[in-house]
């Protein structure tokens, strides 16, 4: 993940317990995450995304039915 972008002032510091940081440090070894921060950012982003998705009702039942009708008409659904 990107290093050296801190100077842009878009990052802030969040404290986490040292034992947790140590655990994360071990977990990310050899994964491509090159810092505890980048891993924590990734996990929080994923968590928030899944929560937002659950909260957000993208389509009304009526709209969803219209989409299914189109999918049936195109042969994608029986």
């Amino acid at each position, binding site marked *: 993940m990107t290093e050296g972008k801190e100077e842009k002032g878009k990052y802030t510091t969040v404290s986490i317990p040292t034992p947790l940081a140590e655990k994360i440090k071990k977990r990310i070894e050899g994964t*491509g995450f090159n810092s505890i921060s980048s891993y924590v*950012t990734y996990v929080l982003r994923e968590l928030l*995304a899944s929560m*937002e998705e659950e909260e957000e009702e993208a389509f009304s039942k009526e709209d969803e039915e219209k989409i299914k009708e189109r999918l049936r008409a195109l042969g994608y659904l029986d």
Partner: protein
Amino acid sequence: MPAPHGGKLIRRVDENKNIDDIEKIKVSRDLAHDLENIAYGVFSPLEGFMCREDFESVLHHMRLANDLPWTIPIVFDFDGNIKEGDEVALVGENGTVAIMNIEEIYSYDKKEYAEKVFRTTDIAHPGVKKLTEMKEKLVGGKITLVKEGKEEFDKYYLKPYETRILFKEKGWRDIVAFQTRNVPHIGHEYVQKTALTFVDGVFINPIIGKKKKGDFKDEVILKAYDALIEHYYLKDRAVLAILKTEMRYAGPREAIFHAIVRKNFGCTHFIVGRDHAGVGNYYGPYDAHEIFNEFPDLGITPIFFKSFFYCKKCGGVVNEKICPHDKEHHVYYSGTAIRKMLMSGEMPPETMMRKEVAEIIMSYDNPFVD
């Protein structure tokens, strides 16, 4: 099913917007496709064409300014008489209409763009060639789709909000996406089916849009896949739908971009083969595998394949991980060799291409892009 890239499926559509009094700018079919891709969330989290900060971050870090993975600039080049703060209507050759709020007009360095994205400045590279023809300024800003374009392959055109409902209705939880710009030979089929063995469904997603001379025509690719799926796939395990965007031939960077797009469609896995989105010898055969190491936070799982081939001794289609025999027993799936056979009217052997697929291709006088 994975959340869309950035957490939210973008939808920027307002069919009631009146554009009568807005300045209209004609745009190419490829740009019109990008407008629809932004508006329907194919390119989530993008809400418009990139402003400078995102553009430069993508060039230098392969991430948006907010640090989300993104490897290909999505930009609008224009040198007409507009200024920041204007609202314009972009009108595509295919009938697409979108409103754009001009947030930023900025210059860029084409050489740097080419070096970063294509790893070359060689004009023979089709992506570099296109870049040299682009206007000198880029225009960034959010867009809102007012009217969708009409095109000949619309029955294969699904948006991410539709594929997500489709996959849910089919009961698919794990979905592998297959990117293609080719007609299928047996090697492609084995890659797809090997991946499919471990998931619930395969999403075959050919790219429809500008390609280079000698590539197969879009119509031929779609008909060939229709034939393959009809005769050799379980109907409940495969979905064929198009992705309307141009090929950039950016190799490894484009592999990441292709994976992000399929994540937005709702896929959990993405097949990356040999020389993905490559052209000529500009990229190493497995560079597009290695680049995924830099993106542990992509949110879609790549499945890497080395080439499949037919082994006369095994008596079947295998790959180097499972076949112990020498190369002399192997028949490789050479696109060039298959192309030569098809052009000379010779039916490729069934070990290379399904008869039904070959017949479709051979029914065209010229199946290739001129």
